[in-house]
């Protein structure tokens, strides 16, 4: 699997670099339940990496391990060539890892703009006192961050809802706002937990286009969990397949489609 670590260029001209994140023999237990059993795989710089599997396969747990929220009992997480020590979520965010959630986690009462501004928190250096005085450094910083956020708003085409409270938005748009907030942090690695769950076909197409555009424009590495196989096959460069906490497949979408074990896991297999 680690044979192809040389940088290469995809057919559509995107550059895939070396290994950004390497998960080595990860095992995660909750009490007596083994959610993840001895899984190894890596994520390369600039690629779109999908994690798929039936319900309860341990996909979200895996994403939480990548994001540093869960600490695996066994195994190592290597980030940019060295072992990543246990970290607090804010420290992970400072490393350049941002995420969206399966169940939208936005501030419902705040406007879209304010929600996305929270994504810039790690880029604000001025202290409480300077913020209170406002004039000078704090103001300058706010303007810079706002400019960055506005570029994200423009990118995701959500100008029309800039001032709308998030609570008033339909589901599909909330998902897009969540993506905007993650993007505002300027992440190196973007983790998307079911970005298209509950969307209709048109919303899925929009979201797919945005994911590809993010990867293309900013070179952001993306790891995503998704159920819609069509979407996964179209979007991702490589796919990891999980079932009951085990890894049962890893490779390009075309390799995955023809993998017998994956087919069995998805379609079920006759028991004797």
């Amino acid at each position: 699997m680690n044979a192809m670590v040389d940088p290469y260029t995809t057919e559509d001209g995107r550059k895939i670099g070396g290994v950004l994140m390497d998960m080595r023999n990860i095992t995660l237990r909750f009490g007596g339940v083994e959610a993840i059993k001895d899984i190894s795989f890596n994520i390369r710089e600039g690629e779109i990496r999908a994690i798929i599997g039936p319900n309860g396969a341990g996909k979200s747990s895996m994403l939480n391990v990548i994001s540093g929220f869960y600490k695996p009992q066994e195994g190592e997480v290597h980030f940019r060539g060295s072992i990543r020590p246990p970290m607090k979520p804010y420290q992970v965010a400072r490393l350049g890892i941002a995420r969206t959630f399966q169940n939208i986690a936005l501030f419902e009462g705040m406007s879209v703009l304010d929600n996305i501004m929270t994504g810039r928190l790690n880029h604000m250096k001025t202290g409480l006192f300077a913020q209170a005085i406002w004039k000078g450094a704090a103001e300058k910083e706010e303007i810079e961050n706002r400019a960055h956020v506005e570029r994200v708003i423009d990118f995701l085409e959500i100008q029309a809802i800039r001032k709308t409270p998030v609570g008033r938005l339909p589901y599909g748009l909330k998902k897009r706002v969540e993506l905007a907030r993650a993007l505002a942090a300027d992440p190196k690695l973007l983790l998307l937990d079911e970005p298209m769950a509950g969307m209709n076909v048109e919303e899925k197409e929009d979201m797919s286009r945005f994911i590809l555009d993010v990867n293309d424009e900013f070179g952001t590495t993306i790891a995503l969990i998704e159920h819609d196989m069509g979407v996964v096959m179209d979007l991702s460069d490589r796919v990891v397949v999980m079932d009951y906490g085990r890894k049962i497949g890893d490779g390009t979408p075309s390799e995955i489609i023809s993998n017998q074990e994956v087919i069995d896991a998805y379609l079920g297999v006759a028991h004797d």
Partner: protein
Amino acid sequence: MTVVASNTAHASVPRLLARNAASFGSRAAYREKEFGIWQSWTWSEAAKEVDAIALGLLTLGVNKGDHIAIIGRNRPMLYWSIVAVQSTGCVPVPLYQDAAADEVAYALENCNARFAIVGDQEQVDKIADVRDQLPMLQQIVYADPKGLRKYDHTDLTSLADLQDIGRKQGDKTLLQSRIDEATYDDTCVMLYTSGTTGRPKGVVLSNRNVIETAKNSSDFDNLSEVEEILAYLPMAWVGDFIFSIGQAYWSGFCVNCPESAETMHADLREIGPTYFFAPPAVFEAHLTQVMIRMEDASPIKRKMFHHFMAHAKKVGPKILDGETVGLLDRLKYTVGEFLVYGPLKNRLGLSRVRIGYTAGEAIGPELFDFYRSLGINLKQLYGQTEATVFITQQPDGQVRSDTVGVPSPGVELKIADSGEVFYRSPGTFVEYYNNPESTASTKDPEGWVATGDAGFIDKTSGHLRIIDRIKDVGKMADGAMFAPKYVENKLKFFPNILEAVVFGAGRDRCCAFVNIDLTAVGNWAERNNIAYSSYQEISQHPRVLEMINSHINEVNEIVAGDEMLASCQIHRFVILHKELDADDGEMTRTRKVRRAVVGEKFGDIVDALYDGSPAVFTETEVTYEDGRKGKISANLQVCDASVKPVASQKVAAE
């Protein structure tokens, strides 16, 4: 009038730009909201941007007289491109941004465009789809680089790069000589008509057409450099060309471009234009929003709103027209302005509107009066591409919902025996591009142009009234004029009536089909505790029939007051058991009724209308959304309406 102006400072748009840069150099010429902030450009900054684009175009090798397509949403960059194209002696051809790829291909091929300046990736992709049909197309220039970074740039350039090249390598002397060479008779712009019949035709408008029209219409409404407009209607539409380029350059006012189509309402509020144009549909959407919000407001606010709106309806239009209104009424109106009208206008973004126009289709009197009663000077105009917009318009203080006004300055009108309206004006188009037959059949050698609309001059007001498209106007059996759309529009102004089809051509009296509006009637039924289970059932409910009957009687009364159309009163009507639908071929996709199809398909019902039977049983084939077909049958009541006696001039004459 024209000899004086030609070859002077005002003979072309680029020369007006130079004049504006000299006289209003530091005033804002353009604003666009981007990244959440209104960016603005003064006239002298705009002139520099335009020059840079023009110089860049010259380096691409544009020849004098080339057609260059412009496709995209309203953005300063694209407006500058239009003027830059004119500066180089070429002809800008704005196209609709939502046109399908083959429509764009047709236009590009028809005008032999070698270059296209487009807004964004969407337009680039669209042209790429049909590129192999367009061998003459050399280069595409785009304004917004988003998503285009990785495209093959051999025949693709960004507008910013083009400007850079222009600034560095452009031939300034050549550009100046091209600007100086322009005459009043050179082509200013070519616009494709929407082409409801057959292929679109390129309407060629000269500098004379555009600048004379801009001058006359600016004088008519006293437009000056202080006006603010919001440019949100399609750039390929002649109206936007006249408002955002013709009048804006003549008067020197500021053109504001919204951030995106969806933010138009919010941007409208922020800009607060002083001169505003919208088709009736936009005004209607605004009004519906207001009404829905008022229903959700607290009881005190709601009461206050309805109380003062009733008062505004009574005296508002009179105050606007400068008629005498009692002191008490005026005082109350002032209080209303403070409590209701002012805040409401602010919410609508219409606080500062000095002149508003609506056109395109008939506007309902209720809708029209609502805006006028708030003190918004909303007026109607009548025009078409071939006239460089203006044929007639309403002067301040003489505004009525059922006329379209007096001839615009410089326009002559005549009504043919057939009832068709003809005009002749300085704005009359030069020709249809490469289409001498169509030009000849539309414009006669003396310069009179047929509008295709039937109308007459209202005797009391002297205003023009448009009745219908001339091809829809027919004669009844006794020779009286039959104008179905005129009556149908009157019916459709009632919220309960969604659609109406009037029959009567070649017959002795008129009868009608009516479609109820299920939303409105359903609401009414709920309030009145009327239970129903289907569209069909509610449509035949005795109280619904009664309600529609009263609407028809009202319309009959109005129509009877009109001596030319009194015979178009509706004698009998049926409420149809299904909505007319484009899927069943009864309407076009743009929701225009196909009269002939409906008449044939429901022939049995039409027969029942005329043979006097009280009810009719019918069976109709319907197409479901998934394409399956089914049959619905119904027993329909045929109702009699009350008709005013026709004080027929025919009888008097005989």
